């Protein structure tokens, strides 16, 4: 019954996509507006199909229906309901199902958002591309990655349950859906890019739309990646959170390209430049998501994160080739005719900073890509010898690129557009620079050693202060705008919150979040202490200023797992229980660490070796400032939300430093659909001029 329902859902999704492709194709070829408009209905059909399939699968997992081979392989009678639910995306076929349903959701959102313009060929082409991608993924589920395949032979009475590492921590509930919301979200910008190239319409309005979708997807991808790091930290037992694992890199690559795009699209919106570059970035981001899907699921690269090997590898690789040929081919065909005219006026300007930002992000993304696929390339070149590319290689490039990006983050918010001089910059950046150097000096005096972390702390303070300056100026501008619109002092002060929302200000909050993450990263990786404590029951040992007392052991068992825990008291205070757990009889044991987190450092405790005799070996890792990584992640998420809240609708062409003008909506309203008017902007050391801002167009 579940299998039947699931197959129906998948067929519905595939059918909807296929028919939508045909209808749109006919509509575009013959120029039939009604056909193009009518194809809107197939997107909700895809979504409904996906939802039916998901419901069927969840029902099968929760009722432990072992007639489906997917459930038989990834579920057991003793699996708790939480991990039964997450079993949907714990293995390969289910993850494709999740991809399909998320894509259906995005497709529906897209056709609803553009429902009034569905007769426009641009929208029609974009919808067509989304239907093609949906048809591919649902088609995978009809064939090689069928989640509802009936088990061969007799129906087993019980199953092995999900992978032990996937039932260790509730974060498995959030991380994959967030990640997929991010990765799948890059389909829409790609669809619009292809549509723009085909129809030849590259105007800035469409870029604005695309930018909003990309920001949405990018925010979820950022959260997904950081949650993945947190999950790794809590589960994997070696005390680290990022290992430059091929699967981690596969999610990082689209993120890097997406970040580059979010910055360079601002240049296009303001000055009309970099059109083809932005299109290339969007094509690259989507292609990298498909490549990442291939690397994760094809089995060519070994990784602790990868799904099991299957036959969908060649299909995914073929789709990657198709996507690349389409996107790059279109650019080759049309790109030169659609290039923006004009160029960047001066290197020291915000355009120049964004270009430098792009070069760094894209360059680093290429390095990560090279490092990830290089073992395969080498094997092909050198006839079977193997070589490894690990964390030291990536860190060698990450550290200088990261420091350079911190510097750019500090300088760019103060840079005006078009052209500026060092004099202006010196004036604006004096206070942040003083703060940065002050932080370095204080750290050196406090005994912190090491050039790279010191530079990270200093540049981070510089960047945070510069972002803070931008926010302060923006809040002040909002206040002044309210005052000049006639509000009283208190009311106007309340309106200061408007200085925090909107694209630029949300971006500043995100920058602050990135700085916090960078500082946590620098501290945790540079000042990490790792060691082992050999303790007998009742004995205490000390490690790096902490005392760890081994109180005893206990066994905790539940139907789904049994874990053999050590009871440790840290610093005479809290109790922690690192354990060795077994999920399901006969499966391998996995170590579960225990973490003593505080705002200044984390003490990471794990059982080092299978205990024998009275003396246990505990692995201890002490890392400072790890908690701030997760705080920074929260700030980034918060900043993304702020960025999505519309500020006063601003024209991207308005100057950064223009004074807040009188055309301000009434203070008391929380109007969410503002009419066009200049946004309150941070004003610099200039009082509002009694001159109306000229500037036609």
């Amino acid at each position, binding site marked *: 019954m579940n299998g039947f329902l699931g197959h129906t859902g998948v067929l519905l999704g595939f059918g909807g996509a296929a028919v939508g492709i045909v209808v749109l194709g006919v*509509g*575009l070829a*013959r*120029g*039939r*507006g009604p056909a*193009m408009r009518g194809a809107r209905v197939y997107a909700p059909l895809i979504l409904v199909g996906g939802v039916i399939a998901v419901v069927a699968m969840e029902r099968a997992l929760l009722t432990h229906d072992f007639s489906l081979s997917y459930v038989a392989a990834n579920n057991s009678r003793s699996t708790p309901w939480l991990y039964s639910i997450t079993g949907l995306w714990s293995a390969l076929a289910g993850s494709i199902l999740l991809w399909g349903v998320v894509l259906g959701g995005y497709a529906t959102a897209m056709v609803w958002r553009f429902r009034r313009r569905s*007769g*426009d*060929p641009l929208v*029609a082409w974009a919808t067509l591309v989304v239907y093609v991608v949906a048809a591919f993924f649902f088609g995978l589920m009809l064939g090689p990655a069928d989640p509802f395949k009936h088990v061969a032979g007799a129906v087993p009475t019980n199953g092995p349950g999900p992978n032990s590492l996937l039932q260790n921590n509730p974060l498995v509930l959030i991380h994959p859906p967030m990640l997929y919301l991010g990765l799948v979200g890059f389909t829409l910008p790609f669809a619009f890019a292809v549509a723009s190239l*085909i*129809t*030849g*319409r*590259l*105007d*800035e*309005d469409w870029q604005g739309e695309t930018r909003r979708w990309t920001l949405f997807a990018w925010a979820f991808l950022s959260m997904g990646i950081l949650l993945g790091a947190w999950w790794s930290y809590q589960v994997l037992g070696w005390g680290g959170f990022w290992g430059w694992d091929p699967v981690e890199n596969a999610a990082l690559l689209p993120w890097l390209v997406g970040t580059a795009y979010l910055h360079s699209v601002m240049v296009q919106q303001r000055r009309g430049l970099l059109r*083809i570059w932005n299109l290339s970035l969007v094509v690259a981001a989507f292609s990298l998501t498909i490549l990442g899907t*291939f690397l994760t699921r*094809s*089995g*060519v*690269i*070994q990784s602790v994160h990868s799904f099991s*090997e299957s036959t969908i590898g*060649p299909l995914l*690789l073929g789709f*990657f*080739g198709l996507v*690349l*040929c389409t996107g*790059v*081919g279109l*650019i*080759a*065909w*049309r*790109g*030169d*005719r*659609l*290039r923006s*005219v004009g160029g960047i006026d001066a290197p020291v300007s915000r355009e120049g900073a964004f270009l430098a930002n792009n070069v760094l992000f894209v360059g680093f993304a290429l390095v990560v890509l090279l490092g990830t*696929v290089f073992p*395969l*390339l080498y*094997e*092909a070149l050198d006839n*079977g*010898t*193997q070589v490894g590319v690990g964390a030291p290689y990536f860190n060698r490039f990450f550290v200088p690129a990261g420091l350079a990006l911190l510097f750019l983050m500090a300088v760019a918010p103060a840079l005006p557009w078009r052209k500026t001089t060092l004099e202006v910059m010196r004036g604006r950046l004096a206070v942040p620079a003083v703060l940065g150097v002050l932080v370095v000096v204080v750290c050196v005096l406090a005994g912190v050693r090491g050039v790279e972390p010191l530079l990270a702390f200093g540049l981070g303070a510089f960047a945070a202060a510069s972002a803070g300056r931008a926010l302060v100026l923006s809040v002040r501008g909002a206040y002044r705008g309210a005052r000049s619109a006639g509000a009283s002092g208190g009311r106007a002060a309340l309106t200061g919150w408007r200085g925090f929302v909107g694209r630029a200000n949300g971006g500043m909050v995100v920058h602050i979040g990135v700085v916090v993450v960078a500082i946590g990263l620098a501290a945790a990786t540079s000042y990490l202490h790792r060691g082992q404590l050999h303790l007998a029951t009742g004995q205490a040992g000390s490690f790096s200023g902490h005392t760890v007392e081994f109180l005893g052991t206990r066994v905790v068992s539940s139907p789904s797992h049994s874990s053999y825990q050590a009871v440790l008291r840290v610093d005479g205070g809290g109790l922690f229980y690192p354990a060795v757990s077994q999920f399901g009889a006969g499966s*391998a044991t996995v170590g579960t660490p225990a973490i003593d987190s505080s705002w200044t450092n984390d003490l990471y405790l794990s059982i080092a070796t*299978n205990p*024998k005799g009275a003396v246990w070996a505990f692995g201890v890792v002490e890392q400072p400032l790890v908690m701030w990584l997760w705080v920074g992640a929260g700030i980034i998420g918060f900043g993304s939300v702020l960025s999505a809240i519309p500020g006063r609708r601003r024209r991207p062409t308005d100057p950064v430093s223009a004074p807040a003008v009188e055309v301000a909506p009434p203070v008391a309203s929380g109007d969410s659909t503002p009419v066009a008017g200049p946004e309150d902007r941070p004003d610099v050391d200039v009082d509002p001029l009694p001159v109306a801002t000229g500037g036609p167009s």
Partner: protein
Amino acid sequence: MSIGTEVDVQAGTVTSPPTPATGRHTARWVAVIALAVCAGLVAVLATRPSAQTVAARSPLVDTHAVAPPIAGATLDGASYRLPRAPGHYVVLNFFASWCIPCQEEGPELVAFQFQHQSTGDASVLSVVFEDTVGDARAYQQKLGVTWPTMADNDGALALAYGVRSDPTSFLISPDGRVVASVTGGATAKGLDQLVARAEASGYGT
């Protein structure tokens, strides 16, 4: 503010955009080069065997190195030495009781040992790898193993032979050189073929 293309919405067609004003074709050339590079990447990715089957070619085999000597007590207390005279083929098998491929190859090794016991030209030595001695001994007893098993408590033997996964077997020729290695489950037939090939190429008496 769209560029100067006229879009006939009814017809859904697009008139061609203006010719490149500057006569440069940068985008085209960059795109072609990018496409070529990606085609190469796709070709490489398409021809890769699965990572499981590629894992670790042993450098000892590649260089036909002299087998690192083994000397110690077996689990039963007898002493074992390698190289030993008179020499014969030795299958050095690293295993653990909990790994599934080890459990699958166990009967194969028993068969292999049984076949060669009478002729005395090959024997098996098992070494415990990433497992406790108690579990390993119980596993060997359940399997009905008659050949010696050694513990490797400090992991020195596994390091000397470069063992990276369970199970790994090395074929050591009578003159004390490593001639072949099998990662991930040996079969009796496969081992026989390896022995035959080694014989044919001149290792051994």
